[in-house]
């Protein structure tokens, strides 16, 4: 329980290679794909992106420099699967990436709503899969949270760390669990704010103000929901509810409604 304080190390070294030669293949849902594409393009990587077919309009949102593709290139140095809201699309993407990409290519897959363990049962080469806490706006932070697969391969872990350093971020590895660390905490704060708004405790704006001035949070829970998206927060909450089967994780009806209508709760 007791841990001594120690300073976290920073890793902002520049990659000793030409990033243009590295193809990063990003499959998944909007706005995660665009967001990751923006960060990777900004670091001069060659980005091949595919947004799930149900969200065709989002292709136009890809940043300049990212190429919209239909298939993952066998030359990809690394692939990302970023779908949180549809297990079906996720499974399809992951199986395809696993089939197309050479064995040594690491696949980072968002593992907030479905565990890495479950996802490894979908593919033929489970050892090259590492989970990532991919939620909209989290890349603005200084750290990327990864989840370990059931049989972590040293090289996979190393390459996940390498990816974080490519983007100028630190890496943290946590055990494979629905919601991981930060998404679980933030989505639970957002869910509680939704219960409070629905009960008329205060307005959504006042709840944000209260949490920022009363506890020094960087954003209020409704602001977080706005940045992350009601659908994404709802997907995380529903996954937590399914995973734990506890009343503690039941989804606030206002959050569910906001996700359906794709609006910010209480605004």
């Amino acid at each position: 329980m007791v841990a001594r304080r120690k300073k976290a190390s920073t890793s902002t070294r520049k990659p000793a290679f030409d990033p243009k030669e590295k193809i990063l293949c990003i499959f998944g849902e909007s706005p995660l794909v665009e967001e990751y594409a923006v960060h990777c393009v900004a670091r001069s990587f060659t980005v091949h992106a595919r947004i799930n077919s149900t969200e065709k309009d989002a292709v136009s949102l890809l940043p300049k420099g990212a190429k919209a593709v239909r298939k993952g290139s066998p030359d990809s140095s690394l692939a990302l699967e970023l779908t949180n809201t549809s297990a079906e699309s996720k499974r399809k993407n992951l199986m395809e990436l696993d089939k197309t990409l050479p064995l040594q290519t690491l696949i980072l897959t968002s593992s907030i709503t479905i565990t890495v363990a479950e996802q490894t049962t979908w593919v033929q080469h489970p050892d090259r899969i590492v989970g990532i806490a991919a939620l909209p706006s989290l890349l603005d932070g200084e750290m990327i949270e990864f989840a370990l697969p059931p049989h972590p391969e040293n090289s996979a872990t190393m390459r996940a760390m390498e990816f974080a350093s490519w983007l100028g971020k630190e890496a943290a590895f946590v055990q494979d669990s629905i919601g991981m660390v930060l998404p679980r905490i933030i989505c639970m704060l957002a869910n509680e704010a939704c219960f409070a708004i629905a009960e008329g405790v205060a307005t959504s704006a006042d709840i944000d103000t209260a949490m920022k001035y009363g506890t020094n949070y960087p954003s209020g829970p409704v602001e977080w929901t706005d940045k992350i998206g009601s659908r994404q927060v709802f997907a995380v909450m529903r996954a937590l509810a399914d995973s734990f089967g506890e009343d503690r994780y039941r989804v606030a009806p206002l959050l569910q409604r906001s996700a359906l209508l794709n609006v910010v709760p209480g605004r």
Partner: protein
Amino acid sequence: MIKTIGIVGAGTMGAGIAQAATLARLDVLLYDASPEVLKSVSGRLKGDFRRFVEKGRISNTEATEALARIEIAKSISSLANADFVIEAAVEDLTIKREIFKKLDAIVPTHAILATNTSSLSVSSIASFTKTPESIIGMHFFNPPVLMKLVEVVKGKETSIETIRTTVDLATQMKKTPVVCKDTPGFIVNRVARPFYGEALRLLGEGVASVEEIDRIVKKSGGFRMGPFELMDLIGIDINYAVTKSVYEQFFQEPRFRPHPIQRQMVEGGTLGRKTKKGFYEYP
């Protein structure tokens, strides 16, 4: 505009509210039922103001002027002419009932009586008075001089006029008031529960360590402090008490259920910074 406020209770919160009020040029009548507390409060206020000057937060003149605006009241009846009284006594409904009964009998009918309670129901406190429309919650955060937020808690009978005057007073005190309904934990103590509760569950489930969770929350989420650092600062006993209180008031709502780690640490006397050992060690 309110010029003079009465404050009942000269402990950490009462004295802190007095400082915030006088720095905003309000006159304060400060009363405490304990003669010992009343005796020591002047020295404490002087010391606090001196520290504010040393830290460059206020000038020497401001400190002297603010201190001169605080009058120590030897009896609660000295508050008879106050237009606005803030009660900041201990969180005990029986004690608060006596205070509000007394205040209700002596203050003018238009006077507003506010409670700084963080865990009791404003409506229940109001029920002890003949003027429930003038009773309101005014929840300051510790330390009141620095923390901008004031939760203005409307009880069942609180009038719009009372809410308006209280919001104005908070603004006059250079605070940011938010109006909320009288429900357990109000806004902050309720909505913040998952920050600690989920962190404790993540730790209990072995998803990540104390240090890792704090690092992720700060570095990835941009929070100034991680949940464990914050619990150590607040006091694990205080945090546990707030959690238990919200949990009980919501009739064992599982979202607010405390975690066994909290109880274990409280019973083991590792309460955070104040005992030099909590989730971290403080040599």
